[in-house]
């Protein structure tokens, strides 16, 4: 069964259509990347799947069930989203404990204390962070909390919108490792948005390249690694990344 399937999806904000006829099929347990230029509609697709961009036509199905246009409670336990900005995605007046208990509370799940504790361990946060406020955490720590929050309801699918782009490399590495481990342990499906090809290479199985609201290429990560993307725009991205990294090409890996 496919985890996410999009059929001929158009998405608009008011009068402007920003995503044009996107079709995708992501199978369960896969890690799929959306890359492409800024403003091409990557985040918008994620928001539409989550129900946050309700103005769409076409088909969206999650785990075989068609999505409604709004946020909907049943889906909450199957799909969760992690946002790009670790600074804006946590309520500034709530402790980490409150943030993580909230989904349990909403869905009437008991034994919150233990679950929160376990989840903090799972994302590699020390218990001493539990009662801190977000401003007392670093960006990487906040992003861990955001991931933990998304995992609280044990969803099958995670939508990740540039989860590391606001973080510096050392923190990025921690988050990427975490995501990789969680996927392995819990059999999650990822739909990841990023503009960083090395990240795709590290974390994903397949990728789709987007430009101006359209998917220009869908490829296997192996092709990316070996530099064999075909579309011109994909190649452009690839070359610029490679050129920049050239100076450190001999970095030990």
């Amino acid at each position, binding site marked *: 069964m496919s985890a996410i399937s999009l059929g001929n999806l158009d998405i608009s904000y008011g009068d402007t259509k920003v995503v044009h006829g996107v079709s995708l099929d992501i199978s369960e347990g896969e890690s799929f990347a959306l890359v492409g230029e800024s403003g091409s509609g990557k985040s918008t697709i994620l928001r539409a799947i989550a*129900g*946050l961009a309700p103005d769409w036509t076409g088909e969206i199905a999650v785990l075989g069930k068609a999505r409604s246009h709004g946020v909907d409670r049943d889906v909450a336990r199957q799909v969760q989203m992690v946002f790009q900005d670790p600074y804006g995605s946590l*309520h500034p007046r709530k402790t980490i404990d409150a943030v993580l208990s909230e989904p349990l509370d*909403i869905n009437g799940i008991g034994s919150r204390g233990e679950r929160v504790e376990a989840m903090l361990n799972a994302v590699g946060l020390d218990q001493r962070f539990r009662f801190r406020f977000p401003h007392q955490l670093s960006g990487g720590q906040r992003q861990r909390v955001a991931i933990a929050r998304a995992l609280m309801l044990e969803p099958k699918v995670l939508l990740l919108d540039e989860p590391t782009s606001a973080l510096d490399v050392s923190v990025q590495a921690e988050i990427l490792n975490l995501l990789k481990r969680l996927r392995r342990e819990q059999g999650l499906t990822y739909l990841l948005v990023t503009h960083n090809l090395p990240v795709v290479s590290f974390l994903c199985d397949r990728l789709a390249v987007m430009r101006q609201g359209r998917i220009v290429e869908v490829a296997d990560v192996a092709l990316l690694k070996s530099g064999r993307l075909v579309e011109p725009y994909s190649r452009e991205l690839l070359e610029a990344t490679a050129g920049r990294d050239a100076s450190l090409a001999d970095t030990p890996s």
Partner: protein
Amino acid sequence: MTTRDWLLDDSPTSRWQASAGRAYRVFTALLRNPLSVVGGVIILVLVLTAIFAPFLAPYSATGQDLANRLAPPSDMHWMGTDELGRDIFSRVIWGSQITLTIVLLVALISAPLGLLIGAVAGYFGGWTDRVLMGITDIFLSMPKLILALAFVAALGPGINNAIIAIAITSWPAYARIARAETLTIRNAEFIAAVRLQGASPVRVIVRHILPLCTSSMIIRVTLDMAGVILTAAGLGFLGLGAQPPLPEWGAMISRGRTFILDQWWVATMPGFAIIVVSLGFCFLGDGLRDVLDPKSEGK
């Protein structure tokens, strides 16, 4: 571990410690701001005066002594006596209870009301917003004192009704602020996140949006307190505030205004009390603005 360390602990071990720590940080930040310290001391004095009025007031607030009316300030009567020979100092002290009641009740009625209406309007948008804001605009474009006056006239005289009237007239301003703030918050990702977890709109508004609007509301309310006290005084000016012989400050000034040229102390002493208390609230509000402002709280 001292209490202070416990409060400032970066890794609190309970919710309670976390919120206590936050409160303590706000408190110490306020202490660093001289004007807000002054303001806080004034409010503290007001509260203590109100609590201990029976012990502090040298005379009764209502005891008349017609033979000794309109006496200038002296050893006996620190603030002089009024037109019925009552000791103004004692009346000012007793009046602190009324002032405090006014301030508290208005804050407790109008701020939550405005907060709720504004948040609902801002969160739902669309027709809900249009209708609620239409009503708010109607109330806002109505002359404030008149509205209060009409309510007092309709409800009957008395300090409680005056308070309700003032509260009813002051919520629209709060509703606007709350709405504006909600509009900026409602698209925040942390709101999107709780919605994705299946939170109902009521829950989102009550648990996530309102707590964020409260700090600017607290600031606004403290700043408006001067205005509230003065509106009460304005109702007193028209004879519709507190019922005599209650020592409400505004009513005292307005009764004393005929004496202002010859017996200045009758109107000026309670006026002075109003100014001091209003200043207290304003200073505190200013201080809170600097301290509670989420922008400055980031680091």
